[in-house]
């Protein structure tokens, strides 16, 4: 059976490849530092479970020192020219899309197969099925592309390194925020925040409670970069005791729409790196390093209007159904 551990080994080997090729790239502006950065991620993927908590903590200290203090450079491995790409695009026509579509199709197909067929359940582990199936799709697509395009053997690692360099330290941000969430949980930060909010805002009407809950969800999501981290805190602090408990709101409606109010916060924050910073880096936006980069600015009007709509919807629906 393919499990998460197998996927980690594969990811570790990929990062190891990035590290080695970076080390051999004499034109790279931060050759040693970048190679160590990707190399340590490889160590975490391959051996993380054997390092223990403190070992992993020290590994994180090193990663932050390498990638968080000074900018990492972007390697420029040799690749095809624009003319060659245009020529290849004309020659190979729409078949070029096929390997790119293999990845999501296998990811979705594999997930469905693991849930509904015996063969699938035997092949793919039931924890994090979609991610494992996604990894499987990447491998199959890579094999198909290698056989068909016949590039130099190291081309996939070199091209992957080019893209990974453009993502840079942001690759670690979601994982770091999730770990911060675990520390917050252990220290009961949520309970303290809840106490504070209820002391500051008088919950004298359903409208006020709804507004405080939705705004709290959005605001805490902006700080934590993730609505999942904000949800237990704000719902325990305001959603359940006031909107549901005191004013009799329907808990299913309150939670469902409260979570969506949090998603509006996700659209507004650079802390949500995988949604807002990674694409800005991948699309090479000139303002990718600013707090309000092009992706967030494009989302801001939709997010703000939708936050208002969510409050109106919760107020209109939660006390009626």
């Amino acid at each position: 059976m393919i499990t998460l551990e197998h996927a980690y080994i594969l990811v570790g080997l990929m990062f190891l490849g990035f590290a080695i090729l970076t080390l051999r790239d004499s034109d790279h502006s931060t050759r040693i530092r970048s190679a160590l950065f990707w190399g340590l991620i490889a160590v975490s993927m391959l051996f993380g479970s054997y390092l223990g908590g403190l070992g992993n903590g020290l590994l994180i200290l090193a990663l932050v020192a390498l990638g968080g203090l000074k900018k990492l450079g972007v390697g420029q491995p040799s690749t095809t020219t624009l003319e060659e790409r245009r020529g290849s695009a004309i020659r190979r026509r729409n078949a070029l899309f096929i390997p790119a579509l293999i990845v999501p199709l296998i990811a979705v197909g594999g997930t469905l197969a693991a849930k509904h067929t015996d063969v699938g359940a035997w092949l793919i582990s039931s924890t994090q099925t979609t991610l494992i199936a996604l990894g499987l799709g990447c491998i199959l697509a890579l094999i198909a592309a290698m056989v068909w395009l016949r590039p130099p053997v190291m081309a996939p690692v070199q091209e992957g390194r080019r893209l990974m360099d453009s993502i840079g330290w942001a690759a670690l941000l979601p994982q770091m925020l999730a770990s911060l969430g675990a520390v917050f949980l252990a220290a009961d930060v949520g309970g303290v925040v809840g106490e504070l909010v209820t002391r500051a805002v008088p919950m004298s009407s359903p409208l006020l409670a709804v507004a405080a809950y939705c705004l709290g969800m959005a605001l805490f999501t902006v700080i934590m970069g993730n609505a999942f981290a904000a949800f237990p805190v704000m719902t325990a602090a305001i959603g359940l005791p006031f909107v549901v408990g005191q004013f009799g709101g329907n808990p299913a409606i309150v939670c469902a729409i409260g979570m969506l109010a949090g998603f509006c916060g996700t659209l507004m924050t650079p802390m949500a790196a995988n949604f807002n910073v990674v694409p800005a880096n991948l699309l090479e936006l000139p303002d990718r390093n600013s707090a309000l980069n092009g992706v967030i600015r494009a989302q801001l009007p939709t997010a703000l209007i939708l936050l208002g709509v969510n409050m109106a919807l919760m107020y209109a629906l939660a006390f009626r159904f």
Partner: protein
Amino acid sequence: MLVLLGIAVVVAGFVARINPLLVILIAAIVTGVTAAVAPGVDVRALARAGVDTLAAFGDAFNDNRYFHITWLVLPVIGLLERAGLQERARMLIAQVRVATAGRLLLSYLLVRQLTSALGLTSLGGHPQMVRPLVAPMAEGAAEVQAGGDLPDKIRFRIRGMSAATDNIGLFFGEDIFIAIGSIVLMVGFLEQAGIIVEPLQLSVWAIPTAIAAFAIHGARLLLFDREIRRALAARSAEAGQ
């Protein structure tokens, strides 16, 4: 109260534009140490709390390695880009006469919301869809309108809007699916609070917001076409003088 210093560190680091990796690590240590503060606790105990927090942070870091699996797509996408994937996406969209950047993104928004609502969230995404396909197609459509190269400002606006459309389609589609992470989280949370709800009860109430998201962002995308037209007209007027 003191544990809130961790949040203060996150906010201050954000305002001071310090690298978030560094800020998060410091915030975690500060939270762990301040949580241990109590009358009669000496400095050595606080130092031990700091080390313990680093270890707890390390454990959580190790448990959350699965975020990195999505990077496996990069070698494939890089390889295809090397063979002209982005260029092909542009050529394809140039053949569709009625395509504009806004209309193209509007149809992508619809597809992304509907597929996410069916649980097919991995059909989209920034490394695998937006960079290689959606953004080049939207740029290609605008290039046809412009009759050639785009001004940089419009090009980057289109790219930002492409990424935004992927996010909005995902966020306000996925919660309609009953087996998505956020629904599982809500069911578990409510169960702990003694309230039993079925996943379906939660997911149906994501539908009104999903419709509103489509209406709001869809309208913005159609207005976006006008913005592009106006910017292109302004440029050709300038060139004519």
